């Protein structure tokens, strides 16, 4: 078997043990490639524990700029004997297995169709370092150094990066560079470098940045003017509030008093967290919470209150694999229905679907405008893949001329000029009413907020007509909302076609890549990325304009398709599902395969979503 040959186009996976400090070394590797001008998409695959279990770091390098999971692995860098058997099996024929050969490889694991490269990492460390912690830490840096030689990376980029990373802790720079050199030298000395797979500097990243979605989202909340954050820790959402706090400490300290222009409360649970957000928003602050699936479920009752009492509420749901505790450190897009229909009674909620860190930032900030303008919960559905991995992204931009849309709020002066204030009176015909903050005016504008039925004056009522009128207004507001939520992004293939793909969130990169593949095979597909629910008119039109639309989702139950079916009256055979829900991000190969299976002439699966084992999992 000929070893794989490629330049700037491969997938490498690091197999480590968690809690051993491998993350920063692996990160160094990815970032260095990025600085060489190469599009990279690193993904952390970590266990739901703290220390001692297998963890992986997969980096795709693609000069063409494909950032989704490709599927398959070309190179494994293995320092974890626990997962070695599984890891080695995963390598594509012709691929490379680089491992710590201080302990010899179990012969039963040997594959002849791959190249096996031993680096005596432990031995090198033991010789060089006395301190056990140093031995562990530098082992990771040494293999990065070796990889630099094996893949022909620009060594200077690496050393510069180290210098940047340890700014402020300069003492650490030299030892790290020494470790890099140790590995580099060992590889140079012992192998013919570079391998068949290698890199070379390119210019493919432009002004892009490498950032995780949660940090971007935390920043979005800062820029969106949030002053109150209430939350309860849960993977993978915790870093949203961490980021908010980090930046708030930088930019939200009152220079005069040293006091904080923000308040973060770690609540006792998610019910309390959303309650705090509702209380703060009711009182005129911009507030948010961040959570994941189980928290979303716990927030259901309060979401119904916010919907019905029309209180701006911003909730960031960083989705993970459900149901229940599910796989807390794996990704999925499976809270769509639970979020859209959260709470008993007739409720529907606005959903936003970001797909890049930049969009986490943009939609994060926008959420506050939308919540205050529309006076209803805004639920952003991001996910672990986007939130916790460094994603290549357009740089963050803020239009300094933009102004917050604080929605319909009456000031004391407004109230003075008003004959009669009715909190739930639709004065403008857009079904959105005016509100007042507590404390605004000594004599006017006070009203009673409640989750029970009330009339236009916010007075309790049990009259069916009044209740009904209010509910119909809320339904009318749903139409107004469609005009405010972000529009979808359409990419026409430019050729006549009656087929299309439709996707949202983190399926974007893989979907675009799959469309490219298929177009090379003569299958032309238009594409739409949906960015919000309720769906705008464009979404319906797009579906109408195509005979068949493949709806790509990372869940089992085709949840977005369910919403599309429920909202629009579509003919049979119109929407086909392309699904991946094993907890890994959907890959381009998987999408391509499923679309091909759906095509006439291929092994067409029946119309209904009767998914059977083997139908969707990616075995590629």
């Amino acid at each position, binding site marked *: 078997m000929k070893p794989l040959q490629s330049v700037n186009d491969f997938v490498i996976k690091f197999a480590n043990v968690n809690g051993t400090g491998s993350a920063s070394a692996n990160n160094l590797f990815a970032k260095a490639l990025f600085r060489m001008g190469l599009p990279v998409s690193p993904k952390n695959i970590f266990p739901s524990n703290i220390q001692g279990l297998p963890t992986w770091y997969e980096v795709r390098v693609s000069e063409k700029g494909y950032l989704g999971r490709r599927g398959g692995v070309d190179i494994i860098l293995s320092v974890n004997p626990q997962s070695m058997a599984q890891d080695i099996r995963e390598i594509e024929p012709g691929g490379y297995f680089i491992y710590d050969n201080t302990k010899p490889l179990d012969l039963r694991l040997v594959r002849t169709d791959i190249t096996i490269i031993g680096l005596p990492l432990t031995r090198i460390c033991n010789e060089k370092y006395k301190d056990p912690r140093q031995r562990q830490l530098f082992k990771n840096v040494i293999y990065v150094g070796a990889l630099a030689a094996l893949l022909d990376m620009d060594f200077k980029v690496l050393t510069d990066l180290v210098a940047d990373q340890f700014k402020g802790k300069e003492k650490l720079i030299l030892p790290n560079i020494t470790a890099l050199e140790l590995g580099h030298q060992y590889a140079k000395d012992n192998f013919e470098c570079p391998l068949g797979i290698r890199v070379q500097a390119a210019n493919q990243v432009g002004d892009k940045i490498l950032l995780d979605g949660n940090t971007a989202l935390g920043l979005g909340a800062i820029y969106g003017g949030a002053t109150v954050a209430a939350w309860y820790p849960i993977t993978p959402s915790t870093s949203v509030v961490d980021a908010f706090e980090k930046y708030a400490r930088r930019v939200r300290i009152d220079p005069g008093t040293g006091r904080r222009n923000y*308040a973060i409360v770690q609540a006792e649970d998610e019910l309390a967290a959303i309650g705090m957000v509702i209380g703060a928003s009711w009182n005129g*602050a911009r507030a948010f919470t961040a959570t994941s699936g189980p928290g979303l479920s716990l927030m259901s009752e309060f979401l119904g209150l916010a919907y019905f009492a029309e209180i701006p509420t911003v909730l960031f749901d960083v989705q993970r694999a459900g149901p229940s505790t599910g796989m807390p450190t794996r990704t999925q897009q499976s809270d769509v229905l639970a979020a859209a229909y959260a709470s008993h009674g007739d409720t529907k909620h606005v959903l936003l679907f970001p797909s890049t860190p930049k969009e986490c930032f943009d939609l994060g900030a926008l959420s506050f405008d939308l919540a205050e303008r529309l006076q209803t919960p805004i639920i952003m559905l991001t996910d672990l893949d986007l939130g916790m991995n460094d994603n290549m992204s357009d740089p963050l931009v803020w239009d300094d001329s933009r102004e917050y849309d604080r929605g319909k709020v009456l000031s004391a002066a407004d109230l003075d000029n008003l004959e009669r204030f009715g909190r739930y009176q639709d004065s403008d015909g857009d079904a959105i009413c005016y509100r007042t903050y507590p404390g605004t005016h000594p004599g006017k504008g006070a009203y009673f907020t409640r989750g029970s039925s009330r009339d236009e004056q916010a*007075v309790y009522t049990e009259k069916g007509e009044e209740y009904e009128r209010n509910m119909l207004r809320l339904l009318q507001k749903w139409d107004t909302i469609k005009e405010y939520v972000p529009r979808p992004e359409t990419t026409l293939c430019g050729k006549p076609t009656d087929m299309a793909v439709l996707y949202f969130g983190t399926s974007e990169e893989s979907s675009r890549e799959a469309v490219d593949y298929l177009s090379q095979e003569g299958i032309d597909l238009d594409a739409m990325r949906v960015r919000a629910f309720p769906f705008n008119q464009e979404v319906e039109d797009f579906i109408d304009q195509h005979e068949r639309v493949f709806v790509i989702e990372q869940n089992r139950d085709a949840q977005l398709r369910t919403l599309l079916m429920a909202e629009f009256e579509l003919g049979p055979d119109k929407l086909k599902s392309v699904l991946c829900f094993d907890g890994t991000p959907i890959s381009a190969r998987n999408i391509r395969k499923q679309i091909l299976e759906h095509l006439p002439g291929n092994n067409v699966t029946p119309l209904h979503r009767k998914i059977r084992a083997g139908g969707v999992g990616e075995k590629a």
Partner: protein
Amino acid sequence: MSYQIPKFRHPDLPVNDLGYTKAAYEGSISTLCAGCGHDSISGAIVRACHELSLEPHKIAKLSGIGCSSKTPTYFLGKSHGFNSVHGRMPSVVTGAAMANRDLLYLGVSGDGDTASIGMGQFAHVVRRNLNMVYIVMNNGCYGLTKGQDSATADEGSASKKGDANPFSAIDLCATALQMGATFVARSFSGDKEQLVPLIKAAMSHRGFALIDVISPCVTFNNTAASTKSYEFVRDHAEATGTVDFVPMRQEITTSSRPGAAHEVTMHDGSVLRLYEDADTLNPFDRRSAMMALMDHQHEGTILTGLIYLDKNSRDLHDVLQTSHRPLNQLEESELCPGNKMLLNINASLR
């Protein structure tokens, strides 16, 4: 269903420092049962706010769900109100207080609302020492759902349904003490002379102030076998020393009586006078307060009055070091760092 009390009033009703009669502090007509203890507490709140000359619009009143939680509709009609969901008022107040530290937050709850479904939020709002007044209208039962025993029902007490409650009662004052409350009092809806000054004191306390008010449910739990009936409470209440409250604006001399054992100057400058008999309780010592509660419970009596006060209370805003200006009044220019900072951030991410 609810409507404002008719505005016609006798012209020479007493007005307070703001020129308001008591009417300015009233709400819609109550829809509770005639004789319900909750209505008396509403009345005490109205009186306290009137006498303290509070600006009604600077008060926010919040509640959960229950007969008790309905009462905010029946007082302070000029204040914003929020009747939230069952048992979760504390979190809503917490958020509200974070947003605007300048209002007075008055939370009203029931024993079901607080001690059952709301126990978690109650414990934690106490622990955070949120600057609020928390009044529990405690009738030992679920009034609005027709009289089931609540978690504050005493062991052996029987409501209209007739079965003696087999579980021991949760003592909300002791629970609050346990969770670090800085102001703890107990009273009785039938004793306005005690209740009104306690409400006033609670309102000028900085931090979390609990008043657990026993408030008989005439419809479901005012039976002979109930320990939350008017009769039982009247017979078994033992008041700690009387509390006099002298608002900040008033002359210290006004209502002064001789023999005050303690004078406490509250955060806002008001003065609290305590006339207590030293052996029962030292209300400035948490341990003594806890003991007094346990002792009275053991004897089957109900200790009422000011039970504990921490004079050095630091509220949640102190702890979080939030800006002195309310967060909801910060301007976009103060909140949004602008594009320039993003340029730096972007640079650091390449």
